[in-house]
């Protein structure tokens, strides 16, 4: 299987200090990697590093396929409606192969809310809209930062399902979580424990 | 090759304890040099040089005003070179030095403006004229203040320094433009600019104190720059081990 995402001894430093121990990872299609670690251990930083938002202070990160990143914020515009946000996402990624807006909305349980401004959604609904963005513009690698945050049980199950489908289609995913044990596909996913600055000393 | 050596040299400088030591050793010498040069310069400026034929003694302000103006501009160039090094090689001590240069440069700019104004009053009969030199100096002061303000506004000092370094380089492009445009503007609006001193008119005997004072303020700039950088470095690294080792001896 082709390697989609690779990191060699990559780390990021803030104020001159490494945020976490250098990370080595290689991720090919059909694999999921769960990043675990305490609060402040650098899970978000690692994901942002993998996404390309941050540049590694040392080591390197190589992406062999398009990636999508879903962060703490769903990256949606509150003043636009859900549909408009999805439309932007599709155009921005220049992809035509994803689900239609309506089907994506229905898939994440937002059917009927398409014309509401995203501002009026609850925190959990916003996360669902963020997931819908992943569906309308398919990419090989998903980088999800705390995808279970602020979602109800049903929403968490939805994340598991979407991840299973994505991995089943030979996609790759990296997700961080500090509480829930993800159930992806037949339960075969790797776990990476990262240790933050405090543990380093 | 030279490029590589420079890089290695700066990286050695980049080690905080080495840099701290360098500042501690170098700064007193620079200050001593400043005092010596100022003593010679001031003596010559006030006692040796005869009064000017046209301006009387008021031209003696030149020995403060001109070195300050030169240093305000030279300080910016030094700061811009440091900023370029800091951005290219990401050396923290150089970032700190860049940011330490700004307040010193601003002080010289303010001094230049104040003395220019004090010279203008007896000569032009007004404290302020929209003269090209004064106006561009005023803008330069705002650029310095902008850099200091930007640096101070960040909570993450390192990030602030790097962003402000970009601004320093932007200013480097901007300052010649401002100077040129303001000169163009004054010639358009005033017909003729008032010249405080024509370079050609300057008598050779007037030159030595000017040179002494110029050297003096350059040394002082270096001294103040190193002092401030050292403080910034210690302030930022206060939780690091090397500080305990170095400061332990002094505290």
């Amino acid at each position, binding site marked *: 299987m082709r390697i989609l995402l690779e990191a060699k001894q990559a780390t990021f430093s803030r104020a001159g200090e490494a945020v976490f121990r250098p990370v080595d990872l290689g991720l090919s299609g059909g694999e999921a990697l769960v990043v675990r670690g305490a609060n402040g251990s650098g899970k978000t930083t690692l994901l942002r590093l993998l996404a390309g938002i941050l540049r590694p202070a040392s080591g390197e990160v190589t992406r062999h396929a398009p990636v999508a990143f879903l962060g703490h914020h769903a990256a949606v515009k509150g003043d636009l409606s859900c549909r408009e946000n999805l439309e932007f996402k599709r155009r921005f990624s220049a992809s035509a192969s994803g689900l239609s807006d309506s089907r994506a909305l229905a898939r994440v349980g937002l059917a009927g809310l398409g014309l509401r401004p995203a501002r009026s959604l609850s925190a959990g609904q916003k996360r669902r809209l963020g997931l819908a963005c992943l569906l309308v513009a398919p990419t090989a690698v998903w980088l999800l930062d705390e995808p279970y945050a602020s979602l109800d049980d049903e929403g968490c199950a939805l994340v598991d399902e979407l991840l299973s489908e994505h991995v089943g289609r030979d996609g790759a995913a990296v997700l961080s979580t500090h509480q829930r044990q993800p159930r992806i596909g037949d339960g075969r996913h790797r776990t990476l424990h990262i240790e933050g600055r405090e543990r380093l000393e | 090759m030279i490029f590589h050596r420079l890089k290695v040299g700066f990286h050695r400088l980049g080690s905080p304890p080495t840099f701290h030591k360098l500042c501690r050793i170098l700064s007193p010498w620079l200050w001593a040099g400043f005092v010596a040069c100022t003593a010679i310069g*001031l003596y010559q400026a006030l006692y040796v040089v005869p009064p000017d034929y046209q301006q009387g003694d*008021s031209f003696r302000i030149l020995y403060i005003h001109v070195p300050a103006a030169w240093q305000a501009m030279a300080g910016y160039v030094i700061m811009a070179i440091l900023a370029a090094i800091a951005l290219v090689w990401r050396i923290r001590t150089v970032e700190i030095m860049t940011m330490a240069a700004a307040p010193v440069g601003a002080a010289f700019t303010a001094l230049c403006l104040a003395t220019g104004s004090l010279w203008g009053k007896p000569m032009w009969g007004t404290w302020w004229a929209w003269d090209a030199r004064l106006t561009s100096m005023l803008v330069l002061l705002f650029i310095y203040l902008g850099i200091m303000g930007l640096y101070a506004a960040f909570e993450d000092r390192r990030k602030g320094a790097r962003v402000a370094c970009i601004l320093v380089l932007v200013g480097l492009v901007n300052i010649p433009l401002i100077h040129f445009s303001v000169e163009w503007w004054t010639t358009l609006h005033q017909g003729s600019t008032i010249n405080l001193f024509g370079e050609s008119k300057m008598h050779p005997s007037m030159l030595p104190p000017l040179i002494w004072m110029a050297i003096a303020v350059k040394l002082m700039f270096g001294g103040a720059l190193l002092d401030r950088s050292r403080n910034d470095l*210690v302030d930022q690294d206060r939780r690091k081990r090397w500080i305990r080792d170095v400061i332990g001896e002094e505290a």
Partner: protein
Amino acid sequence: MIPDLDYAFYVWTSYGLFALVMAWQFLQPRLRRRQILAELREERALRTGGYDDANS
């Protein structure tokens, strides 16, 4: 000793400003350093539980 200059006010104010600015540039880092050192001493006291330094 002090030369008697015409335009004395303007000349001496300029030189005075020069002295002030230089003095401030000299003193500011030293005052700041004293303050930082004092803070570091306090931090060490917080860590060790006392002012055990011989020089302080």
